[in-house]
């Protein structure tokens, strides 16, 4: 491998890493598998870089490779969760393509609206979100901490996410009009 090519590819990996991880996380729950698929995607991308049509967005091409690997992963497991149904994946592709077109250099800039939406969450819901995602507590532990039932924690997390989704729609991160998706 030429050093210059490697450096260019490393820059591309760096630029798209957060987006690709978000895409893989949306379809795979196990963090170790997420890392594996991420690395495989980049390696396949490197190997097939000559096949890449430069008139198309690179992010979309990378997601295509990742999608193939994700489906292969579930094929090996002989199971396919409902959130990896073709219809859901098609919607996810659409969502990511929508975010690709937002202004901002990095993925974090493009999804910065999430920070603003989190600020507007009611404190009770924000607390649950922070404990769950930032502090990596399980719902049972959160229930102990804030002295509610585990089911109540789950409901609060659902409610928080629903509010965040509404907020992101208002801010244009998620499309507002229902999309026409074919399986």
């Amino acid at each position, binding site marked *: *491998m030429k050093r210059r090519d*490697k450096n260019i*590819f*490393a820059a591309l*990996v*760096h630029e798209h*890493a*957060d987006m690709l*991880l*978000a*895409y893989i*996380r*949306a*379809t795979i*729950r*196990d963090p170790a598998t*997420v*890392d*594996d698929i*991420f*690395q*495989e995607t*980049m*390696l*396949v991308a*490197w*190997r097939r870089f000559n096949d890449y049509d430069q008139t198309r967005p690179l992010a979309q091409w990378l997601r295509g490779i990742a999608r193939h*690997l994700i489906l*292969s992963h579930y*094929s*090996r497991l002989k*199971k*396919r*969760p*409902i*959130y990896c*149904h073709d*219809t*859901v994946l098609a*919607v996810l592709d659409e*969502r*990511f393509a929508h975010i690709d077109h937002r202004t901002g250099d990095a993925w974090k800039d493009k*999804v910065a609206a*999430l*920070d603003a939406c989190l600020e507007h969450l009611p404190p009770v819901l924000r607390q649950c979100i922070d404990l*769950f*995602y*930032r502090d990596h507590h*399980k*719902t049972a532990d959160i229930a102990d901490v804030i002295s509610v039932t585990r089911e109540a*924690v*789950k409901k609060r*997390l*659902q409610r928080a*996410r629903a509010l*965040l*989704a509404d907020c992101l729609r208002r801010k244009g991160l*998620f499309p507002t009009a*229902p*999309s026409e998706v074919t399986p």
Partner: protein
Amino acid sequence: MKPEDDFPLRDQSDDQGALPSDAERVADERLLDALLTGRHEDTPESTAQRVERVCHALETAPRVISLRWKAGLSTAAAAVVVLGLLLTLSAPQSVQADLAPILTAFDKGDKTYQITIAADTNEPAPRRGFGRRGFGRRLAFKPPRRGMMTRRLDNATLQIRGRCYVLTCRTGRGGEVLKGFDGQESWLVCPWGASARGDDHSLLEQEIPDHISSLLFLDLRDMLHQIEAQYALSGPSAGTLDDGQTPTQYYRAERIGRRDRMPRRIEFWVDPLTHELQQIVCTGVHFRGPGRQRYTLRITLVSTEPLPEEWFTQQAHIRPSPNAP
């Protein structure tokens, strides 16, 4: 990201083939969850580490992962006997290219490996039936006895120089059975003085069935053939040996074909500097004999000290009989 049972999203059961009632809502929830997870986990440091790992993998084995793309094709093709013949006639160029440094290192110098075998405890138990007859069978069931083959191979020593090898197995009475290959002929030396020579590996058959002989490094290229055709290979990733300190490159191959006699998983650890195979672990190995018991075969590098020049010949191991004149 949280474990399966601790993931409070709505309507996200893993029902296979079920249609999501509201694909957009499910997709939005998944995306939102991914964004929230990434918000805390994807720091500049973690991203830099991931990029570094990718670049490292590009330098060491840029094409290994391509096997996964071929997985479906290989599985279907494995059913065709003719292809099996073709596979033996044509070298697996991609795997050999990717693991070329390992093959090169393997051909250099002498190596001594220790073999251990343990019964798999995670493998599914044999079916014993239900109802009255099943109850009788359950009562009569005894765990399968450990066969002679596994007894002999456990704690065996394997010494290798290129294609030559000496396999030293311990018998139940404390003696040693040596089987080897000097580059031209296979040979056998038994503790009671008997010895034999042959022009193929059939002398090994008693200890090592064909389907796993290559796993014991006796034919590393054949092992790569099998991995390409029957397994999905991933790696390398950073790992350590059992001592938790020695850094290695870790490869993992999961069986994707239906050849149930083959190990379910093959893992191997390679020294990142010398590319020497440090350890290979085959899980779910089936030896000859009744029952469905599976074993874990572990082969660990214990020495790279040079062996005597004639060590791999039969003559070096034949001891004069005490009764001989």
